């Protein structure tokens, strides 16, 4: 089997497990893009590239809360798919400028997150059927019914994660290939976009808080950082 196929299988299998943490199993925040993309990057041989993607995709969806019956976009699945795409692209373009390559791979992230959110809707509707069946079994005295319904829900969500990560990863990879074919060397300039999206995430987090505390602390953080830079004459890192 080709390396690309192995990478896809590893990413979809491991990513499917990590994506379960978003809602259906655990919720330990292992599915946070910073964590899951770094782990997936490590599994595929480049944790730094995974972390680069994770840092950008952790921020934009922080303000969307899974409150009540609302199903937010599934950003962890999108982040894992994009990581797979970037990893496949890195194998194909070893000399590429990493921020530029990541920027292109990140392009379909909002679309993938929304699609994965719709898939969650579908699964919740599908679960209604298995839960109704489990309720009938319970009323017939089968006490294992809740465990069976839980297991079915886990399997549905795993399959969703597996498929979306594999398909989304190849979509991101295809985009990188297309952009590199069209722009060639000029694609290096797309490194800009990576930092622009990082800034976009920071801006969205800033705007998602009301009240005085976050703006005041933000100003304090800016002042402390600027003070460090001025006093020591060196960057923070």
């Amino acid at each position, binding site marked *: 089997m080709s390396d690309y196929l192995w990478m896809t299988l590893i990413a979809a299998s491991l990513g499917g497990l990590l994506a379960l943490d978003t809602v*259906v199993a655990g*919720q*330990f*925040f292992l599915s946070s893009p*910073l*964590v899951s993309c*770094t*782990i997936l990057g490590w599994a595929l041989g480049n944790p*730094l590239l995974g*972390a680069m993607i*994770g*840092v950008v995709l*952790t921020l934009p969806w922080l*303000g969307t809360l899974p*409150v*009540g019956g609302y199903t937010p976009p599934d950003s962890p699945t999108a982040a894992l798919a994009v990581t797979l795409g970037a990893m496949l692209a890195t194998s194909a373009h070893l000399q590429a400028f990493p921020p530029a390559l990541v920027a292109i791979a990140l392009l379909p*992230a909002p679309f993938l997150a929304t699609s994965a959110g719709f898939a969650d809707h579908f699964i919740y509707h599908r*679960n*209604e059927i298995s*839960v*109704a069946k*489990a*309720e009938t079994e319970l*009323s017939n*005295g089968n*006490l294992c019914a*809740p465990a069976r*319904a*839980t*297991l079915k*829900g*886990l399997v549905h969500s795993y399959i969703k994660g597996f498929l979306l990560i594999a398909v989304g990863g190849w979509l991101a990879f295809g985009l990188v290939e297309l952009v590199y074919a069209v722009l060639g060397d000029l694609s290096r300039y797309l*490194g*800009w*976009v990576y930092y*622009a*999206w*990082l*800034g*976009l995430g*920071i*801006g*969205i*987090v800033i*705007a998602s*808080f009301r009240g005085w*505390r*976050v*703006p005041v*602390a*933000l*100003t*304090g953080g*800016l*002042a402390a*950082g600027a003070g460090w*830079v001025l006093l020591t004459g*060196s*960057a*923070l890192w």
Partner: protein
Amino acid sequence: MVKGLGSVGWRSFFVQAAKNYRSMLGMGYAFSELPLHKKLDPAEAKPVLEESAEFFNTMPYFVPLTVGMTARARQNGMTEDQVRGIKNTVLGPFGALGDAFYWATLKPAAAMLGVLFALLISPLAGVIALLALFNLFHLPLRLCGAYLGYNLFTKVPGILERLKPYKIIAFLQLLIGISLGLTAVGILGNFAFAGEHISFATGLGAGIALGVVGSLIRLPLWTMWFAMLAFAIGISLLL
């Protein structure tokens, strides 16, 4: 003490596995509660589990606490209607407190600290900081929640109030703001000292501005995403 309280914690990790729009977490709640009824006669356990599988929706981290409280209520001889009343009474406040504390504050705080550490120290440090801060606040509640709910029972609301969660929320909001400020200065400073990447700093600054303005006027994320892409490509071509 009711047998089986120890397994409620790990079972509650899967409380949302069978989430659906009709009974929400009801079936997951029944799955979490199952070990408490294993010793019962099936005919006795059936109505209890049927009641458990009914509609239930709250912050998932508070499920073990609720299970402990209802187990105590049943042991005190309350009827299933009264147990249902307890569940319906706590689901609103637990949901509101959990959403405000865990989702709206702790999650962004842990994520921002993780991002800052990932940029400042290393990706591994970022991952550890994020997981440590987030899990520190919910794992004890989930693993010991059933015991707490069982032993404290009616004292639970009072104790939650005495813990002053709004003060922790205020502290975490300060942490978010400071992390955001340090992250922005850190990235900009890094570009400034690197010299040749000054245009990337412009991209970052433009992104922050668009993120703030776009969120305030409620632009969808994909609109901001593609606007930023078009802006960055345009400026790149000009430069």
